[in-house]
């Protein structure tokens, strides 16, 4: 949606030659109120410096032999074509991290969409303890990951509370040091942590679903379940597209949780994530070019996923 707006305005600008061209009297060069441009200048400079330039820099870096040099030193950084990408794709640890994040998304994204929609629908109709209920679901979202990670390690440790309750059903070795369970445990943690925000988005979307549709459905004899699937779900479809997109983007950027919950992607790299690999390769091992290539591959992956989700969820009208 925003992409089309941006490209259209950019195209519109390029047709009028800057400055010297034939100026239409109706619209001055900088608009009727150029003061707005002045007010927005700090923000525009910020976006250019912190988003646009680094974005271009990241792409540039991924095609060059880039390394850290002493400040001010003039060094040669030759163009190496796809060499960095070849290095990334030949590294089994990095390939594994992409697989891990795939597992993560397969658990986290559907769980997030279903739970947040169901909980938001229930919360929307709840009358009693409304404030208490909302606050309880939002609180994990407003708390730092670093703070709650400590409790989760304690809860899911070998003789932690979760295993004590499960008794003989507890996995061996414990959750976070178990190759099979490490990533799913992280996915559950992230779902729990972020759910409040997505409930908030769905609650906003539910206010836009017309009450008349529910009344009409009730007249036609639809039950609660039927109403949920035939009125609520299609009614909040634009929000679903947004929730899918945002949870995929945040999921693909997983770093803090594997870094702290599983001590940097353990056991045996079973819970490493691409961003964790970017940190290790780029900053710890000093090859920012490889890290930039991982980042570019990650972003292309997210874009493809987002495109597929949009097709599937049919968000064209949003």
């Amino acid at each position, binding site marked *: 949606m925003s992409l089309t707006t*941006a490209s259209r305005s950019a195209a519109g600008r390029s047709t009028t030659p800057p400055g010297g061209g034939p100026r239409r009297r109706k619209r001055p060069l900088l608009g*009727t109120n150029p003061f707005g441009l002045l007010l927005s200048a700090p*923000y525009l400079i910020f*976006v250019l410096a912190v988003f646009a330039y680094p974005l271009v820099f990241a792409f540039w870096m991924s095609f060059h032999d880039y390394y850290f040099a002493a400040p001010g030193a003039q060094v040669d950084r030759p163009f190496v074509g796809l060499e960095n990408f070849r290095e990334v794709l030949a590294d089994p640890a990095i390939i594994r991290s992409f697989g891990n994040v795939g597992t993560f998304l397969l658990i986290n994204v559907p769980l997030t969409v279903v739970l947040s929609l169901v909980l938001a629908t229930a919360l929307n109709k709840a009358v009693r303890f409304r404030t208490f209920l909302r606050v309880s679901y939002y609180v994990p979202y407003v708390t730092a990951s670093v703070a709650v990670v400590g409790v989760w390690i304690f809860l899911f440790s070998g003789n932690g509370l979760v295993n004590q309750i499960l008794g003989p059903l507890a996995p061996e070795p414990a959750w976070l040091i178990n190759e099979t369970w490490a990533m799913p445990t992280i996915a559950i943690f992230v779902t729990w942590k972020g759910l409040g925000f997505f409930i908030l988005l769905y609650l*906003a979307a539910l206010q836009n679903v017309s009450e008349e549709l529910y009344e009409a459905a009730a007249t036609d004899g639809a039950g*609660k379940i039927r109403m949920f699937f035939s009125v609520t779900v299609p009614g909040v479809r634009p929000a679903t597209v947004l929730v899918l997109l945002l949870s995929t983007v945040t999921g693909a950027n997983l770093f803090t949780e594997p870094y702290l919950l599983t001590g940097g992607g353990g056991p045996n790299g079973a819970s490493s994530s691409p961003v964790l690999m970017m940190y290790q390769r780029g900053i710890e091992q000093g090859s*920012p070019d490889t890290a930039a290539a991982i980042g570019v591959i990650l972003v292309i992956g997210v874009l493809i996923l987002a495109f597929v989700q949009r097709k599937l969820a049919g968000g064209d009208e949003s």
Partner: protein
Amino acid sequence: MSRGQNILRSVVLTVGALVFLFPFYYMVIGSLQEEPDPTVAGAFPNPANLTLDNYSDINGRINLLQGLLNSGIFTGGVILCTVVFGVLVGYALAQLQWRGRGVTFALALLVQVVPFQLLMIPLYVMIARDYGLADNYLGMILPFAINSTAVIIFRQYFLQIPKELFDAARIDGAGELRILRRIALPLVRPALLTVVLLTFIGPWNEFLWPFLITKEASLQPLAVSLANYLSNVAATAANPFGAVLAGACVLAGPAVILFILFQRHFVSNNIGSGVKG
């Protein structure tokens, strides 16, 4: 709507809420226990056995007050920049006609889906290496300085104010600067609290960026020093979990308290529209 369904819904919601809150309860209880007790009974200890030892223990290892102060400076800087510059852009986007307005609005939306992690390496090179801003509050604040969601919320807010109000002032001969100071800024006050709350969450809880660029312990925000403690030295403490949980309570406390006090302003419609545009 049947009574049975109502009760069922309330029960499910309440049980869900308790599951969501339990880790927080466990965090507080764990931080007050002398010995870690992972049994079920340990979740409901005798109040007489509770102690504050873990808090002094963690304070001896990482300077809690300094950490809180650093988090406060980092967060405060971001909030200040966001409020000052965000109000200006929000007003310009909603009420003024100027070339580039559409592009600016599209950028504010687009920026929210750009993954920060892709920018992490180039930003690190620029800020830490080129500008020499590692171990510096300015370097911490810079990438977060203006929160784009806040910009959209301000814009949304100014859109609700009738244009005639501003036009009338213009007809009366007020300059743009005067209109901004005398009309726009006083009107925006109700949106301010929402923006401050929303902006607060970001830097206060941020780990990755300050972790990358602060190596000096005396400059690290609490989230970073606690995480370093968690991954490095926890093994050497007498009651490592108790100490970690005590630090976690100190880190989570301000955000949770602020949120509960002002949860009324954390309104779904404001933030929902902020993200959707």
